[in-house]
């Protein structure tokens, strides 16, 4: 089963992402900030990481950078969940190593479709 690590500091968003993805047949693990996500990621493997950008403790950009420094996460798709559609933010994410982004707001169907875009 495809394993996804979903990172968001908002519990409602986290729930929504988790439920949307798990009902689409993915195995989802949630984390509430970058640091927690990194700790979890180091302990087990994931096929895709989906992370919010603005978070306390460690933000999404730092998380992506840290994950890309881990050999297990060099090539897997890492997507950012962002409300900021601005080119600056996207560039910042890309520079950090993000594969792509999903712009909030999105609905569960869009989310799942995007997952299928990068996963088989």
């Amino acid at each position, binding site marked *: 089963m495809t394993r996804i690590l979903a990172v968001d*500091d908002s*519990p409602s968003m986290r729930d*929504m992402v988790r439920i949307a993805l798990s009902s689409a047949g993915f195995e989802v693990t949630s984390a509430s900030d970058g640091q927690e996500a990194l700790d979890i990621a180091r302990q087990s493997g994931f096929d895709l990481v989906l992370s919010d950008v603005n978070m306390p403790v460690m933000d999404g950009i730092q998380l992506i950078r840290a994950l890309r420094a881990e050999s297990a996460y*060099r090539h897997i798709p890492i997507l950012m969940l962002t*409300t900021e*559609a601005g080119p600056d933010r996207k560039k910042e994410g*890309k520079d950090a190593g993000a594969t792509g982004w999903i712009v909030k*707001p999105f609905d*569960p169907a869009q989310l799942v479709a995007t997952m299928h875009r990068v996963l088989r």
Partner: protein
Amino acid sequence: MAIDLAQFHDAFFEESFEALDSMEAALLKLNLGAPEPELIGTIFRVAHSIKGGSATFGFSEVASFTHTCETLLDELRGNRMQVTRHVTDLLLKSVDVMREMLRSVQRKEPIDAQRVADLQFDLELAIAQKNQPAAAPAPAPVVAAAPAPAAVEAAKPRVAHRWRISFRPYPQLFVHGNDPLRMIRELSEIGELSVKLDGNALPSLEALEPESCYLAWDLTLDTDAAREVVNGVFDWAEGDCDLQITEEEVPVQAAAPVAATAAPASEAKPSNVVNIADAKPAEAPKEAPHPAAAAAVHEGPKAGATDGGSIRVSTEKIDELMNTVGELVITQSMLTQLGSKFTGHAAEQLRSGLATLERNVRELQESVMRVRMLPISFVFSRFPRMVRDLSGRLGKHVELKMTGDQTELDKTVMEKIGDPLVHLVRNSVDHGIEMPDVRSAAGKPQTGTVFLNAYHKGGAITVEVGDDGGGLNKDRILKKARERNLIGPNETLSDDQIYELIFMAGFSTAEQTTDISGRGVGMDVVRRNIKELGGTIEVRSEYGKGSRFIITLPLTLAIVDGQSVAVGTETYIVPLITIIESLQLKQGMVNRVAGSGEVFWFRDGYVPVVRLHEVFGVEPRTTQLHEGLIMVVEGEGRKVGLFVDDLLGQQQVVIKSLETNFRRVDGVSGATILGDGAVALILDVPGLIRVATQRLAA
């Protein structure tokens, strides 16, 4: 796939209200001169999350307003705008408006659109007026969709365009997790795709870097999809490739039914070449780099409730649990009593088992109690804002000092203590603290201090509200009390008795009532509310120096530490907190006073005797005062000696409401079930004193 987003709404509202509280707190802490980037980061994140959530869950009005808020905050975060008093005022108002909007949405009520629009306008104005003129506020909320492959799925290859795509990834394409195969697959889903591989750059096997991309492709796509759909396939690869998309004339057949789907006029134009890697920077001029932004997102762990592993549980569930534990305590004490009657070799084991049970039950009870306890900061947190707003309106300088805000108390007590505290703090700011010039004239610092303090004392929590203002004016209180016939014209009162007058119904000493502190419906209601919680309030004051209100509350409403007393065959529970002393009167110590009945000298004054058997109409073991015991109790500043047959023991009892199970009885606050299954009434000492006084007067 149908997922009902409504199931996330409650969680969203709850987290948003919490987030708004922390946004408000951060705003109040914000230093106007040198705003702390961490605080601005916190504030920004709140607006940001609410915007994202409300947009996702379909609350577009909230999303739109919050977006404007966020835009302003982004300016602050990027140091492109000064944090002024005006700006923080606007943001505080925004917190109110967001709260209001969310509350309206939650209750499915209409939003006060005018208020929202007004404030939104003010925010936009503030953004427009910042130091640099440029950059008009982003007009619309972000409704940009995700790279919409959903739209793509349905598209049948109904040829309207022929796109020639030259896709030449840079070697690092893979590094970001992008896969050319994915993009080619996606293209093939939106139309008829022919693929030509360009492998010219492929090195020899020895020189090949496995992590680099050496391949390039020339693709031809026949589709009705517009240019941005095709572009969208590659959007994540932006900057990692050279991409050219050219439109080519479609040969013969399909030229007719074009543009039915997405493509507006501009896309239907003849071919033009767009290199997205170049195009992006041109359409959005780079803003000045913001050094603060990076720092702002670093943040220490969130304080308080969200820290560590925690779960949300509804209060009802905890109440149920509490109730069950209460029943368990009763069952356990029944068993303990029963166990003491057993004899024989197994009895010892039984009793030791019962002792363990008792210990475990007590621990369980304490644990459940702790679950219900919250730091009083939940109540205190509203005061910084309130004091700030009030003092601003009154033209006073007031500093609020809060201590002990981590002191814990039961949630139900907390919910009920909020209003009385609000009233007291308001009074302190409005009536207590003087105007700056008055303070200067009196040789005090211009800025007055209102303080809030909370601490545990015995089995109770004490909350103090005080100020260094003018203090209570005894002469004025007396004058007013006489005017209102609250006291006789020649009655002389001690200081404490004078201060007590302010708690009487219909008393207000303010020269003129204001819309801030109400019109004399004040302190009596405060006292009543506190009394209903089983607490007390008293006041200390020194004229010219300030006042201090001291509130004592039980830590919980669910159990009470009580002394059980016997009157005839009945058992009553007297809350320990009210008991001063128990003593045995000797013959001759009791005087009969006209109008007051029996009194005896206790410490520094005469105390009336209240015969409990008379109040409750039960048959006592004895009616002779020297044969029973006197328990001196205090309520609302008055002392009485309760005459009882005997003292039984101290115990924690679980309070059962009489009102729910029977009806309200004067002088009784509730009931409990004793170990032997009998019901004992818990005395409401202030109420009992009232009842007894009325009886004497009658």
